[in-house]
């Protein structure tokens, strides 16, 4: 129980949940009605899934014996994963941003005539959902950074 409730594991859990939420929001965004319907972004799903997998691996690794060489290898792998989690989520954030920014420009910053045509309720909802996705992915990434400051607990 102690191993499960270590700070590192709690944060890894949080990363997993936030990445999953980000993924769900993204899928909802590209499948739902509105401006971004069908606007799939390459890599986002992969980045989120990888971050989730890495989070689970970190939690699983906390239960592995870490004596001797095997322990050192586990420690190093976990360290790499802890660096990769925020990197994956920031890659997701930036990939989404790159593909969404033009749409945000149309919906929020066009001149009045264009905005009247494009800022429909459905499009606005789609845009806000995209922003929410970015926020969750960003928080997952920050959580990943925080988590990287916590190593696996040493065995007694």
């Amino acid at each position, binding site marked *: 129980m102690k191993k499960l409730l270590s700070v590192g594991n709690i944060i890894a859990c949080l990363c997993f949940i936030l990445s999953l939420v980000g993924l769900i929001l993204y899928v909802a965004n590209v499948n739902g009605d509105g*401006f971004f*319907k*069908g*606007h799939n972004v*390459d*890599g986002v799903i992969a980045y989120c899934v990888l971050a989730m997998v890495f989070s689970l691996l970190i939690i699983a690794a906390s239960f592995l014996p870490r004596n001797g060489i095997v322990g*050192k290898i586990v*420690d*190093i792998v976990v*360290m790499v994963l*802890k*660096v990769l*989690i*925020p*990197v994956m989520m*920031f*890659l997701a*954030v*930036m*990939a989404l*941003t*790159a593909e969404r*920014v*033009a749409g945000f*420009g*149309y919906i*929020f*910053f*066009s*001149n*009045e*005539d*264009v905005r*009247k*045509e*494009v800022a*429909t309720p459905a*499009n606005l909802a789609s845009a806000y959902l995209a922003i929410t996705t970015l926020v969750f992915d960003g928080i997952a*990434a920050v959580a*990943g*950074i*925080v988590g*990287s*400051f*916590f*190593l696996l607990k*040493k065995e007694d």
Partner: protein
Amino acid sequence: MKKRTLNALTLGLTATFASIMVISIAGSSIANSYRTNIDQMFGTESFKIDDSSEGARFVKKYQTADEMINAARNVAIKEGQEGTVVLKNDGALPLASTTKVALFGIGAYATYPYSAGDLKAGNADALDLKTAFTKAGFTLESNVTRVYEKVSNKHEIEVENPWTHEKTKSVGYDHAPATAPGDFAQFKNEEVPAADLATIAAEPANWADSIDKGSTTGFVVISRGAGEGNTYTPKGKKGSGGMFDPVDKDLALDYKGNVTTRNALALSEDELSVIDLAKAHCNKVVVLINSGNNLELGDILSGDHKVDGIAYIGCVNDYQLAGVVDVLSGKVNANGHLADTFVYDNLSIPASRNIGDGIFKDASIVAANATNGFDSRWPDQELGTGVFSSFASQPSYSSDSYIVEAEGIYVGYKYFETRYYDSIMNPSYHADSTAGSRDGNAWKYDNEVTFTFGEGLSYIDYDQEITNLTVDKSNEGNVTAEVKVTNKGSKEGLFTAQLYVQQPYTEHDRTANVEKSAVSFLNSKKVSVAANSSATVTITVPSKYLASYDASEGVKTYSLEEGKYLFTAANGAHEAVNSFITAQGGTPTVGTGAQAVKEWNSATNDVTTFSKGYNNSVITNRVDNADINYWLPGSVTYMTRKDWNTFPKDYTLPENAFKIADSAKKDEWIKEFQGKQYTIRTDEPATEGKDLGMRFGPESALSDTQLSNVNDLYWSQLVSQITIDEALGAVLHGGSKTDVLTNVENPEVLQNEGVSGFTTGLNLDGLNTQYEKDTGAKVFKFNVHSQTLMATSFDPDLAYEWGEVEGNSGLWIQRYDLWGTGLTQRRTPYNGRNYEYISEDAMLSNRIGARILKGCADYGIINGPKHLGANDQEYKRAGINEFMTEQKLREGDLRCFQAALEPNDGHGLAVMIAFNRIGSTNACMNIGVCKNILREEWGFTGIISTDMATNSYYFIAEGMILATVTQVADFSQNDNHINQGTGGVDKTWPYISVNAVKNDAHLVEQAREDLKYQLFTFANSAVFNIKTIKMTPWWEATLTAITVSTGILTGIGALAALALAVWPSKKED
């Protein structure tokens, strides 16, 4: 610090630096794509223009900034002086200098457009109507001014940017005309009725009683806003169902939001109450029409609301009102003329029967899904058929909506005047039937038309007469008419000579369904004539515009038929028609004016001379499938003058809707809807681009031959260097800013807007201008033009002057490429962009457009008119099928653009294609129009751009390339590659990749050919006057520094963390 703690800290920092590095690398890529936008936001520059090259090909005409500014202001004032049209005048105009002026109506205090933006410059010394009258020496009636200033309450407002929270100052009004009607929305007329003025202004109810009636002339300004994506809603059509039923939603709201009994383009009850108020308290009342959309003026021509004067002032900009007042005061003779026909009921216009949308009964058979089968280009993607917003990408072919332009060539006056002519001269054509009559009775001209095309009163009585006429009917020949203009008055004045023609309507025409208007405008010219004297002007127009397009079997080209061609010079189309009637022994029944007529005889049926275009290219049918009868024979009867009972039926009604599956050519049709006209080949290997060491820039020493001939070997060799990846990528992602091609290193060229001129201002810092001293302004904006007043000036020479000013302003602000004029035919009064266009008449657009473009081209500015290809309505423009005959397309919308783009006439260097379909083919993918007609027949070698191509399922990559589009408009920059998606595919069209196209030499070579036109255009423009010097703005330097530093720190951190992890810990004692 314990080793473990240090290790954790190191790891955390490594993760932090790695994350920041990822953000900065990805952020740099995003920032690079939006470099121009970021530069604008931060006020930085990514490249500097060096235009100091000696021996520059294009040189400024105006050597100082003050000269440039004054030239812009002067041409704008002239637009007001020449474009103001006096339509009615019962002794009200010109104003005596002692007359007091009372300005009524909220439009008098916020004359449209009243906010700075694309349409209005908003310079520091911009004039409103009050100031224009005051500066002209008139006294304003203070009671009216006081009350209306309180009602309109112009004040400063702060507008907060919702994202940056930055607050900028803008102008607000409590009551001002609506700036946009919406897109088939319910229009809200913001006019405040007379009864509410006292309450709102906190004035006594009898405030108007103190107006000195005897000495006051009241001006009531009636305004209508407009804009992109807007369409005025017609009121219900009589006895019909569908979207135009006369229900409340089609009627306008008043300023309180209550439904009225009026449609948006009729004068509202509130506006009429204001007119009545003016009538009650002023000696004379003049209504000023401040609109780009034709209003229904019947209420003020007779009866209770009849006024003493009506003048059209269009949509004004910063300085035009000075010119308008010059006309109202008589300082300048009234010399403007209407560019459109005004009618009692806009629904009596045949084109009005078919706007909006019909929906194919079985539109869903086009969709890509499990039932119909998926599209191999998007194998797992369901694609619908609905037409959505022009700016949204939806998984849809945008194919389900259509209109049928069943009116054919009979747009505007060509309908009304031809039917009038036939009612007198050809009774067997049933011109007086009830079909199309606005009140259900026998059709009568004066029951339908209030003011006609070309009409305009002059304060000074004058005559115009053709004294000499020659017709050179060779392919490059001209009609040359010498017109004597006689000033019968006692003052010098400016007058307009207008040239009209009647072509013979023959038996062949009636059999082959070739339509001929009874009167057609050809060209016009302004002339200043001294009192009691005459002056002769020469009006020329290419003879090819006398020919008609005959799409019938056995002809299929332009035909100059045997018979009599009648020419006259007249004050408007109706006077011209009356002249023809009189000359042919008939008696006009409406109007009395009739001028002398000259006759020219064509001895033979000539189907040869004008069957050849530029460079002897063949002119033949190119858009047979734009006619719905191609797909569904006999389904539509286009209106024909031989039987006016063919007045169009409303094909948008559900009971008249078409069924795709009924077509024998269903499969071919579905391919058009889906943009599948072309299948990418796999058996013809393309040659990869090879660096031949040829570079392209202002330093390139090009010979005259190379500069004048796009087919010179130099250009083919130059573009052969472009890789397959960049050849397609640069066309498909080339909008907004042309990117630098590897192996070519062409200059970067930024695109600009708009129709009223460059919206980028001239920074006056350091220029020491008188303008800055006088006004305190630090910037002058050159978008000071009024397209509506240019149109009603009927002055191609003024159009050239504006083109010169526009071109020179580009040289001054170092911008060389803009979407700078609108030439689409005004098919109905409802199109919200009519204010950007010229006229219902193709030849007026042709002549004015050509001179604007020539003025710009003479200074090397790439001015691209828009939107070629029948952008006849904003509603569902991104996909609507527009069915029409080839004659209608060629003699209508295309003719509006033709002269502007031909090298021997306007010499325009660019064009933007419409969003809609021509027939069922996306206009941007229409090879018949873009390649065969524009490039081959017209000899156009310039840039062809799409409008914003946001729906990649409607704008098909290979289709646009094959139609010789040189750039697909998008907002991104530095993306002229295919391989920007995952796995090397195109990010927008994932079925396009180098692998997918490398065995289609036809497609790849066409893409290189398209880029050839772009580079050739740059070489013949002021782009080649300049050098582009790249600079690194601080934000880019910062991002680079962050990337490098975090990269290093990540590496150090990772190594440190690894070392700490593997290094054995010290055992504690």
